[in-house]
């Protein structure tokens, strides 16, 4: 029923001599939301940042094993990292709009990928902002600074910016951790909407959020995947004791 999008095989990561990820195996199907849960420092974010190779910027980053996206090893020799990051977008924990206008923020990704036509640019920006459920709130002030928006609006702007360049996968690194409950709900609704067009991997500390918005869940602990499966199974009937302890809030 599901088509495989990302396939992680025996993936290890270490920084200096610290092994952060140990032998990760994971299959992420297309058009699903996969939640990565686990206590702080367990390697979820590192794993997420491995999927679009953002860890490459750390000079002491070492990895072995492979991550396949559509069957192609993204750590292979002939991979164009810039193109990979275009295909695999990312939304960060802290909303990080550029210090430009709202319009320019969304248009930036399109411009650097060579879209020059003004009309098309505007249409795509509009469509992305609509899809990110932000258009109605800001359509009259596209030229004002993105930094004047509220935290929740900024995060939705970052999502709009990410989907503007039509990635295939969206990685979200605790996108709601700094937001109030109403903004959080808006973004969760958005995630459910986006699932139709994109494959989403979501790191979250919020169990309710994982439960509400994801199809699949993987539980990370100390750099290992303890348990993976359908979200409803994991939350109603976890196989491992550690998973149960964590989702019931007994530790972490």
């Amino acid at each position, binding site marked *: 029923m599901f088509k495989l999008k990302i396939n992680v095989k025996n993936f290890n990561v270490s920084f200096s001599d610290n092994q952060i990820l140990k032998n990760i195996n994971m299959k992420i199907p297309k058009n699903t939301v996969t939640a990565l849960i686990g206590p702080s420092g367990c390697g979820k974010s590192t794993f997420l940042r491995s999927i*679009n190779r*953002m860890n490459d*910027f750390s*000079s002491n980053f070492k990895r072995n094993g492979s991550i396949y996206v559509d069957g192609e090893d993204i750590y292979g020799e002939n991979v164009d990292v*810039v*193109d*990979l*990051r*275009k*295909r695999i*977008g*990312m939304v*960060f924990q*802290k909303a*990080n*709009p*550029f*210090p*430009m206008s709202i319009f320019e923020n969304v248009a*930036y*990704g399109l*411009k*650097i*990928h060579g879209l020059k036509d003004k009309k098309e640019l505007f249409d795509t920006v509009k469509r992305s902002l609509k899809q990110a459920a932000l258009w109605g709130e800001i359509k009259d002030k596209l030229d004002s600074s993105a930094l004047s928006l509220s935290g929740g609006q900024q995060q939705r702007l*970052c999502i709009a*910016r*990410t989907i503007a*360049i039509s990635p295939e996968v969206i990685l979200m690194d605790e996108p709601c951790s700094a937001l109030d409950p109403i903004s959080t709900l808006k973004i969760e609704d958005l995630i459910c909407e986006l699932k139709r067009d994109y494959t989403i991997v979501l790191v979250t500390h919020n169990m309710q959020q994982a439960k509400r918005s994801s199809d699949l869940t993987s539980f990370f602990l100390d750099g290992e995947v303890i348990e993976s499966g359908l979200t409803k199974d994991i939350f109603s009937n976890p196989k491992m004791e550690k998973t149960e302890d964590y989702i019931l809030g007994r530790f972490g």
Partner: protein
Amino acid sequence: MNLRRYSKKKGFLKLIRKEYLIEKGFFTLAMVMIATVLLMFAFVVIESLPAFGHSGFFNFLVGLRWSPDMNIFGIFPMIVGSILTTAISLIIAVPMSVSCAIYLEEMAPAKLKDYFKPVIQTLAGIPSVIYGFFGLTLIAPIIRNIFGGSGFSILTASVVLALMILPTIISLSQDAIKSVPNQFREASFGLGSTQWQCIKYIILPTALPGIITAVILGMGRAVGETLAVLMLAGNVSVIPSSLASPIRTLTSNIALEMGYATGIHYSALFATGVILFMVIMVLMIVSTLCSK
């Protein structure tokens, strides 16, 4: 009620008095600084008045001839000289130092950066007379061979000036680039930008105010630099006909003649100082306006 009763207590009054003294103390020190600047300016202006009275402010400013022995004081060629050497040194130094700062902050491996810092600091610490020597023995002959003439020229002085202001602009631009939040880089790379696109569209625009400050400070140093320019520029007070012509700047005019000047000539040198003050202020205001 309680507060009022408490405020009548002795300890509280003592505390208030101490706070008061500390605040007034800092205020006095700050005022001393401001007074020093004002006094300096006033002193220079007062000393310059006889010269301005002698030539007239306007004639002093736009006069083309500087002949102290005939009591003719026209400073215009030196204003041109100061502005020209500063402008050319900036044209040489700004692209070099900004690209150097970008390289060091955005591309260079950490180790290279560590080696580079002391080098730049040393460059900033070399006395200007040494720069003068360097220009004298290396740059002047090169200019002489290429352009002819004596080799003491606008270009010679500007090249050495450019070297002197490099460290200022590099390290301040580096600070500006460093202060661009890393999340902007991540966001840009996350959207699939190349490194160059990230630098061009995100980092440079964000760091621009800081870079402009760096350039203004470099410019201030270039206008004020005296000794190295004096050793290299040829010091002839004429409007230059080419970049290989000799030139005299406002600062070197003062330094060259202060030793033996008397009477109205002495005052004319102070008047040069007043004009220098004004030139620097105009340049600062213009560049600050440009940055907005």
